[in-house]
């Protein structure tokens, strides 16, 4: 019931308060970013996909830090929203409102772990990866997570709301798996701390 309410809230926000942009523009721009990263981080024409994954995650992290403000502003303008009471509600909000208003997709939340601290998000369709085929050099299929920026975004956004999480992809249709799935694990709630001395 609560999840349907959240779903409906996501739909409403999508229809009324969100400015839209052409999906192909987003897809092609993101594709160019990934391809350029692969070229930049390659030695002797061998891209270092592990490094590319790390860079995508870093970029996503920076996006997430800022995106969460936008998200909270939009979803609390709708006054029926209250803060999430549990990690499960967090999962619902991410999948039904967050993904909906920014990408217009609704991943499904699955695979809750026994202690309720970890869940999976399965994306039926991934607009970032339309028309993409991974390069045929044998390694990209095993090493590159094409949509890794999404992991960074979720991690950055949750960190700004006091949750330290670990977000990773576990399978990707671009690699030949059946589904595109990421795993989100709550590591700890962040209490207010003194800032560290170094920058």
């Amino acid at each position, binding site marked *: 019931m609560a999840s349907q309410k959240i779903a409906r809230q996501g739909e409403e926000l999508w229809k009324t308060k969100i400015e839209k942009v052409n999906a192909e523009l987003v897809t*092609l721009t993101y*594709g160019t970013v*990934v391809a350029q990263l*692969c070229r930049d981080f390659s030695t002797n024409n061998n891209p270092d996909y592990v490094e590319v994954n790390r860079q995508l995650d870093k970029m996503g992290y920076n996006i997430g830090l800022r995106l969460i403000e936008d998200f909270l502003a939009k979803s609390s303008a709708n006054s029926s929203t209250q803060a999430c009471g549990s990690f499960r509600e967090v999962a619902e909000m991410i999948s039904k409102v967050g993904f909906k208003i920014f990408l217009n997709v609704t991943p499904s939340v699955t695979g809750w772990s026994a202690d309720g601290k970890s869940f999976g998000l399965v994306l039926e369709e991934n607009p970032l990866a*339309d*028309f993409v*085929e*991974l*390069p*045929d050099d044998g390694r990209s299929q095993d090493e590159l997570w094409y949509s890794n920026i999404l992991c960074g975004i979720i991690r950055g956004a949750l960190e700004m709301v006091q949750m330290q999480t670990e977000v990773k992809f576990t399978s990707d249709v671009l690699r030949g798996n059946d589904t595109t799935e990421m795993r989100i694990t709550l590591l700890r709630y962040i209490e207010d701390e003194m800032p560290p001395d170094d920058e």
Partner: protein
Amino acid sequence: MSYYFTIIGTRDNPLFESDFGTSKVGGDGVARFKEEAKYMNQFIVHAALDLVEEVQWSNKELYQNNHVHCYLTGGNVKFMLLMNPDPSATTYSAYPTSPPSRPSTARQSTILLAANPTSQATEEAVRQFMNEVYEAWVKCIMNPFYQANQVVTSPVFRSRVVIAAKKYL
């Protein structure tokens, strides 16, 4: 009869090539070019390119009992389809005079497409084939890892071309 299909990029470099035979009416889908035909085909297709550049969508060109169709995309990439109705009758001699085609084998192929290269049905079929390939081509170049004028190595694209060939040719 046999077809040789190739995609030429903007710098006259070949990006993709594939040969197949008709799967309609008695063909078994396998190309039957003679041994020397492999590189002769490429030569013929490249020679035809000069004419294409003179006339922008030139439709066909009779050449040594072969016919060439060309489809020009917006990005100045050319899809060339070479059709040869009866490869066994074509002999490549050292002299540029065209060899006579044997009438007996020619009679068998009257129902096949390339026997009537000027017919409306042929043009329609080739046009539909080119449109299908064009759609597959657009999807292929939207791939962010594909650079302009690079050789196309995607197996997905190759299989789409082969399926389109089976459907229309």
